[in-house]
């Protein structure tokens, strides 16, 4: 069940896709009046888009724009949300939009990672592919991150491949570039962010 804010019901007769949504919405008991809200929040819920900026996802400076100066080489990863450069909408309606942003030694990056990076800045989904945790322990000596929930470990130099632990899938990478002197999104997530169903 989504908890998006309420809004007016669509006035025009809905298309086929909306009919299904409507029917399923009735099935799980959603008030009809709330369906419009899901559309209003689509920009907030959309995955990162090219040219999106990055803003801090948490902490006292939550929502502040991330600049190149916030990403010193060797510094710990920041957790960010994407922000639409034109409308200013922060895409924080889904925790799956959380992004790990860090600057590594460009010479240490493997070829695929290097192709998606700018000046050593790399970005990945901040949601563990094992069971969806989003807290990370930074291990600067190896440029790896470890999930404290179940100890899956990912190599940020090498497409966030799994080094240890129960995760079986790497963290989806997010291409980055620099525009207007800021780190920005250069393309969509490579892979689906979020936990694995574990079969079944």
């Amino acid at each position, binding site marked *: 069940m989504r908890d998006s804010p309420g809004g007016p019901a669509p006035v025009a007769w809905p298309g086929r896709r909306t009919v299904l949504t409507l029917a399923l919405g009735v099935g799980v008991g959603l008030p009809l009046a709330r369906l419009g809200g899901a559309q209003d929040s689509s920009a907030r819920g959309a995955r990162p888009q090219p040219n999106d900026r990055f803003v801090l996802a948490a902490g006292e400076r939550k929502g502040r724009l991330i600049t190149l100066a916030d990403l010193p080489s060797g510094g710990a990863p920041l957790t960010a949300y994407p922000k639409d450069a034109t409308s200013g909408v922060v895409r924080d309606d889904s925790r799956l939009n959380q992004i790990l942003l860090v600057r590594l030694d460009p010479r240490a990056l493997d070829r695929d990672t290097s192709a998606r990076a700018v000046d050593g800045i790399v970005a990945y989904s901040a949601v563990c592919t094992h069971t969806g945790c989003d*807290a990370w322990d930074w291990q600067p000596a190896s440029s790896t991150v470890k999930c*404290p*929930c179940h100890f899956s470990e990912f190599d940020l130099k090498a497409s966030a491949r799994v080094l240890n632990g129960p995760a079986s899938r790497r963290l989806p990478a997010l291409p980055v570039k620099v525009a207007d002197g800021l780190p920005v999104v250069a393309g969509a997530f490579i892979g689906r962010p*979020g936990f694995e169903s574990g*079969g079944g």
Partner: protein
Amino acid sequence: MSLRTLAIVGAAVLALLGPAMLAAQSVGSYNAVTEQRLLNPEPQNWLMYRGNYSGWGYSPLDRITPGNVKKLAPVWSFSTGVTEGHQAPPIVNDGVMFITTPQQQVIALKAKSGDLIWRYKKELPEDLLQLHPTNRGVALWEDRVYVATVDAHLIALDAKTGAVVWDTTVDNYKNGYYFTLAPLVAKGKVMVGTSGGELGIRGYVAAFDARDGKPVWKTHTIPGPGEPGHESWQGEAWKTGGVSVWLTAHYDPQLNLTFWGTGNAAPWPGDMHPGDNLYSSSVIALDADTGRIRGHHQYHWNDSWDWDEVSTPLLIDFKKDGRLVKGLVHPGRNGYLWRLERRADGIRFVDAKPFVTQEVFTKIDPVSGRPSYDPERKPRSGAAVTFCPGLWGGKDWTPAGYNPKTNYLYIPANENLCSTLVGQAGPYEPGKLFLGIDRPKTTMSWRQGASHIGELQAWDMATGQRVWTHKFPYQNWGPILTTGGGLVFLGGTNDRNFRAFDAKTGTPLWEYKTNSGITGVPSSFAVDGVQYVAVQSGWGVDAQRMQARLDTFLGTKTDVPQGGVVWVFALRD
């Protein structure tokens, strides 16, 4: 009716029936689970989480004995298709078995043949965080099956078809609330407790009408302003103080009380939530009709060690100083074996003694049972503090068992492990980890000279003394089944074995290597006069987490394969 309207109605009906219900077929006749049957379960059935309301994990069946257990062999198995921790018991009602799996499946099988009757799959939200990817089983009542879900729903299914009868959204998973426990059904109510202590929730137990899923009562495990016990918290800490409930209560129908174990206060270090923090790390007695707290005992105050005391005390009557005590017996995560008295007017302390090496408590008050602490062993902000047993304690969630024939309590214990924590305060954010520690500095170690970790212990309830111990080289995460045939069954070790022991002597008698490590609760049942023993094998969650910690400090890399399988054993002819 126009085609367009038909399409809308059709889709709505499909949604109501549940696209998640797969391979449904009717079971035919089904014996309704009445209140009377729950109060007096037949020996051939396993109708609830621990087999009876007293929480014994005991089957009176006696065909399988120490004399013939070597002939025990698998008769069927069923792959769930799911990884992670398969902890639910096979619950059996007159030949129909129900299991749950991680990722929120409920599966009905023919208990004799293993044939699939139906499978329910809940579609989980894509943004769900699963700190504990597991489910601990169903509850039965009338012709319904109840499951509490990891995205905070309580769902009633038709026992014959798996169709959804009702689906109640109990809480918002985005704020860190989720369920892992098997519900308790008593007096027409379905009761659940919430997980999420590591995410800064405010814990509670809630009851719902078994017929329609409507809320009946809700009792917070942290008292609010104006409620007794609220004074044991300071400032706003009570709002995010944890005290989760993740195991099924036991129930005394004479007293009409349900007994729930509660988790630690959040975040972990005690100096971040000064006070005793009622009712954290406690047992609380809730009136089954109203949810009113009619008694409690706090095992330890101002928890600082992540010692949840969520395991529910077993209802065991024992003699103490010549007097028969209607007891509550709890082998605690804090490493002490607690014996309490359950009464209409509350819970009274009887005695407590350590069952593993415990270096934190300096004494136990002989009247109140309140422990005193070595302050150097109490984690706090800005200091590295080492304590034994470690944060997984002397026994975690894995249920102990009680056999009325031997009068022994069986404890799956872990000895010799210690933890080091460094307290570091952090902000609370809904749905985020709220541990209050410097995580990378958290380490595990074992006591110098330690020769083993896992133990299976037997304690004589007549004397209050330990009578035998079986040691395992590595950790033991095996829930206990004990039987009228004089056996104790458990898995729990990283070598994938399922084992049987002589309940009287502790002699190991039988073992079988399954597909994965076993942290599932075993059960026993009979169909057509044949006794079966059943268990799910499927390693994960905290057993896996502890393995990762062990590998880190031992320099090993242990590969315990994952994937859930139901195993059912019987004697070979």
